[in-house]
């Protein structure tokens, strides 16, 4: 008999048992496993005291198979609560700590992955690490005054005082690039520090795309908010929408109907396909291979048309809704049109893989090691190309049809390109399996109640996470949405510095295939 619903995330004692080895050391440090209504459902919640946060972070950072997935703050009355989300193969762990005195230990000294979040939390809540390196601007523009909308209270001092000044000395100079760049590329400012040809250093200004989405979600019902959530990163609309919907569902203790969950998976894999085709086109453009670019763009356009014919929207907006999906795919269209569109992509990829002048630009370009990827908390194809087999496609429909994780060695642009090609083939297989298993529309009704929940989905650019807190009227008090881009931009400057020259940077950027919008939100 088919179950009416996929099982909801395991109840807390069960989940805590699966993460026993991870939770144990925290309990020794005075951590308290929360299982009442104050817990984040969909994850194990451990409350840590301010004074043991540093030791707990050190313990978790030193545990094999655990990585920092996210860190964020929320204002709970007079105190600000700091939450760290740790990912493990078997699930997620959330530590929460009430901060005092507008400061917390410099966690990025222990887990470098946390640096971006430290900057964000300072901008939005005015609390910062007690020591550590100067912070960067991430979301708020320099002209953001004291009345600029923020999630929490204002920073205690003008942001300029805490932010890094970028100065260049000696034999190097700074080459400013952006924020207005080539046609079709998002606004992004590169501060390129160079001695003439080699990239000595690189920093980014990403705040041009800030829209205050998390701020705008407050007070909305989950259904109202879903519209904005999927626009956090339009090129990952399904993944981010799914992560948000899953967080809401976890908070409310419900699960989508199985056919609707399969529909989500079909949309997610279609999203991966068109993104990988777009990344391939961008790689060709960056390497000056215009015929290859046209070939990849033909495949991209065909895939977008398959999306439109199957789901009614080229970029699959509005498919995922909290509780389920708004519509089912046209299975006939997918069976009829997808093989041809994918074949176009496969042939373009095959031709590129036999073009030496193209491969020469990709090999040994933008190298990242597995150690770097782990330390910086990288996700998605960028991490998988260093050999790390991480993938958030588990639970729900992926229990029925498990996804094969494609990895590569080398960590360079070519490895990322190979991972994308492998994943595209896997996505086609998964779509076919999900369609055969039966897709449909439908929603589980959302009860009007409070709670907190964590949700995730594997976007084309890596794990997307969402954390939602609902009040008793079912309205959002705080929603944290963290697309994969946020994590992977953290590794971009390291990739660019690894023995590369100017003209490699567009190639590395195309192989990362991130969005600035997702970063700045």
């Amino acid at each position, binding site marked *: 008999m088919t179950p009416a619903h996929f099982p909801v995330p395991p109840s807390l004692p069960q989940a805590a048992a699966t993460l026993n080895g991870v939770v144990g050391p925290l309990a020794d440090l005075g951590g308290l496993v929360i299982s009442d209504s104050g817990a984040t459902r969909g994850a194990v919640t451990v409350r840590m005291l301010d004074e043991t946060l540093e030791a707990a972070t050190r313990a978790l950072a030193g545990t094999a198979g655990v990585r920092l997935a996210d860190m964020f703050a929320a204002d709970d009355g007079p105190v600000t609560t700091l939450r760290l989300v740790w990912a493990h193969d078997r699930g997620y762990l959330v530590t929460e700590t009430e901060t005092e005195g507008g400061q917390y230990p410099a966690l990025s000294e222990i887990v470098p992955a946390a640096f971006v979040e430290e900057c964000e939390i300072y901008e939005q809540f005015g609390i910062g690490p007690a020591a550590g390196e100067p912070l960067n601007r991430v979301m708020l523009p320099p002209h953001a005054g004291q009345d600029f909308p923020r999630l929490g209270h204002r920073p205690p001092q003008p942001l300029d005082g805490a932010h890094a000044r970028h100065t260049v000395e000696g034999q190097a100079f700074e080459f400013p690039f952006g924020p207005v760049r080539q046609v079709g590329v998002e606004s992004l400012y590169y501060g390129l520090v160079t001695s003439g040809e080699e990239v000595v250093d690189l920093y980014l200004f990403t705040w041009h795309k800030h829209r205050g989405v998390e701020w705008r979600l407050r007070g909305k019902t989950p259904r109202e908010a879903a*519209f*904005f959530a999927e*626009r956090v990163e339009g090129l990952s609309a399904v993944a981010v929408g799914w992560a948000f919907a899953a967080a809401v569902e976890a908070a409310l203790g419900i699960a989508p109907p199985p056919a609707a969950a399969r529909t989500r998976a079909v949309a997610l894999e279609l999203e991966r396909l068109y993104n990988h085709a777009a990344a391939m086109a961008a790689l060709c453009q960056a390497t000056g*291979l215009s*015929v*290859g670019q*046209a*070939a990849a763009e033909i495949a991209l356009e065909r895939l977008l*048309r398959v999306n*439109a*014919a199957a789901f*009614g*929207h*080229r970029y699959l*907006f509005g498919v995922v809704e909290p509780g389920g999906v708004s519509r089912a795919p046209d299975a006939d269209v997918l069976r009829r049109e997808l093989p041809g569109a994918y074949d176009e992509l496969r042939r373009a990829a095959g*031709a590129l893989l036999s*073009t030496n*002048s193209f491969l020469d630009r990709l090999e040994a370009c933008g190298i990242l090691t597995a150690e770097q990827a782990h330390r910086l908390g990288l996700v998605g194809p960028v991490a998988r190309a260093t050999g790390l087999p991480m993938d958030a496609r588990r639970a729900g429909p992926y229990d029925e049809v498990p996804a094969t994780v494609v990895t590569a060695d080398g960590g360079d642009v070519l490895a990322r390109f190979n991972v994308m090609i492998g994943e595209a083939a896997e996505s086609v297989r998964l779509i076919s399996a999900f369609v055969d298993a039966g897709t449909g529309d439908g929603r589980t009704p959302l009860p009007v109640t409070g709670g907190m929940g964590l949700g995730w989905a594997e976007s084309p650019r890596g794990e997307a996470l969402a954390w939602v807190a609902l009040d008793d009227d079912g309205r959002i008090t705080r929603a944290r949405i963290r697309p994969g881009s946020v994590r992977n931009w953290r590794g971009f400057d390291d990739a660019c510095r690894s023995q590369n020259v100017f003209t490699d940077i567009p190639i590395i950027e195309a192989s990362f295939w991130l969005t600035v919008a997702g970063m700045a939100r």
Partner: protein
Amino acid sequence: MPFWFARGLRRGVVTTRYPARSDGSAAFLPTPPAFRPRQLTGQTADRLVAVCPSMALRRQDDVLIFDVGACTACGRCAEAAPDAITPSGEFELGATARSALVKRIPIRGETR
């Protein structure tokens, strides 16, 4: 390189008149709204202003001001008031001045 040249030739002519022919997939492209002033009541206009996520709509007395430059063609207004709004079908807009993208729609509908 000769390989790519030959591949390009095999696929045929790559430059065409624009548009070369009408394209069925254009029907899927989201487009900004077109308004029916007679169906537009003050009440409807207020609802549309509230529903627009990119603040492309605002009301000034008996006029609804629509900034096409701010519109993302999300379709929420057409969903909220299907009588007063249809998709314009116009996805290629051009203007030489920013102000030309701001339209004034008279509110002519009767308030019941």
